[in-house]
């Protein structure tokens, strides 16, 4: 069973009764296997967030099929073992980090006896120990992002989906985040994330998927990408692929089940 399986996903946003809809995703197919760390890349407006929102059942595809952890996207069983970090999200400013995690833990039906221990462990993991009882309205943007990461990894979900992973984090936060992800990766967790930080992608991923204009341009293991790059930076390679000068999916022979 794949952790994520997307087949011919098409998503359109209506623009009004007399205007044609905007096609944000135009037939994406992808597959993420358990234990893989996959970077989902593309320029702004490529369709990354739309695809990720479809995986969560926030938006509904015009056509195509999505399975998450073997269940239809957005269904309760698919969300039971799933952690999600949105691109931009605020958390309730009147709650502390501990209260926030307790609330999310209860929504996940984590047993009350284990929950408090797990919340403390997770807060320590994201570097919020000692500040866990401060109201979130007093947190900086980076600290709020750490709360977001904490809620997404609470309860050791099998699959983690991160939209714009390091958004709002300072260099120390990014370093800490990389350490957290490396630990999750070593523990065999499946991670699917979008990011504009290509250095982060290079350090963490087994495989990358590059999309633009709602289509997959390249789906390849990082090893093969390194071989194809011939000494160029990942940034140069990314620009070439997304502007159409690089190897296309057909030419590159990207993996696709």
């Amino acid at each position, binding site marked *: 069973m794949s952790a994520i399986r997307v087949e011919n996903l098409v998503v359109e946003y209506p623009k009004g009764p007399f205007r044609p809809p905007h096609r944000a995703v135009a037939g994406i197919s992808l597959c993420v296997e358990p234990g893989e760390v996959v970077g989902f890349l593309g320029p702004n407006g490529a369709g990354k967030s739309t695809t990720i929102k479809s995986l*969560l059942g926030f938006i509904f595809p015009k056509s195509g099929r999505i399975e998450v952890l073997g269940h239809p996207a957005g269904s309760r069983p698919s969300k039971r073992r799933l952690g999600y970090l949105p691109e931009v999200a605020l958390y309730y400013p009147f709650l502390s980090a501990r209260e926030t995690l307790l609330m999310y833990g209860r929504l996940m039906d984590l047993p009350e006896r284990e929950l408090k221990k797990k919340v403390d462990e997770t807060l320590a993991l994201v570097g919020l120990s000692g500040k866990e009882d401060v109201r979130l309205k007093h947190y900086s943007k980076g600290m709020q992002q750490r709360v977001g990461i904490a809620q997404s990894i609470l309860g050791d979900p099998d699959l983690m989906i991160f939209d714009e992973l390091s958004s709002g984090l300072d260099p120390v936060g990014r370093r800490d985040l990389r350490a957290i992800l490396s630990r999750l990766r070593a523990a065999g967790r499946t991670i699917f994330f979008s990011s504009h930080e290509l250095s982060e992608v290079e350090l963490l991923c087994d495989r990358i998927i590059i999309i633009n204009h709602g289509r997959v341009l390249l789906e390849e293991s990082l090893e093969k990408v390194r071989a194809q790059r011939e000494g160029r930076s990942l940034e140069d390679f990314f620009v070439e692929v997304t502007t159409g000068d690089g190897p296309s999916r057909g030419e590159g022979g990207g993996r696709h089940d």
Partner: protein
Amino acid sequence: MSQIALFVITWSAILIAVTAAARQMPAEISNRTLYPLLAKPLSRWEFLLGKFVGVNLMCLFSLVVLYAIFLIVAWRAGTMPGWIVAQNFYLRFLSLALLVAMTLFLSLLLTHAANVCLSLLLAIGASTFSTALSLVHDKLSGLQLRLAEALYFTLPHLDLFNLNGKVVHGWEPVAAWVLVYLTLYALGYIAQLLGAAGLLLQRRML
């Protein structure tokens, strides 16, 4: 004095209910607090129901405070009302729950400002409509009469839930069947409004 106090309680509670209910869904969507919540095993229906219950608990708390102040003042003035005040409290709470369901439904269709304005207008209309219609019913005919009757049978009649006058004039408590009927009446409207709101939310792209 009691009349003015109950009038103030009624409209303060309506204002609190409408303003609180109107901001729930738009604030969750615009602040994006909705996303991490709905990524957990929580359905949109449960989320909506949670909002409905939460706003109603806040309305209940407000009503308890307002009625407590009213009763303390009435007791000190030696004009303590009878048990009908408890029925008035219950029916007021029911009417607020109906209003909260209506405002939550409209919040998925309208902008925040438009929703607050329309909900307050509907609250005024629903609180006065049947009285007003009974006054002018005989003078209406044709399309006007049909329109008025359509509105009469569509809009909930919040004035049915208003026992303020009976409290002020020291009436005996109303019969139990009246309370049962009004409870079913309110629950019917609430179920329809929350059902419609749930269907809208279920189909909405977030």
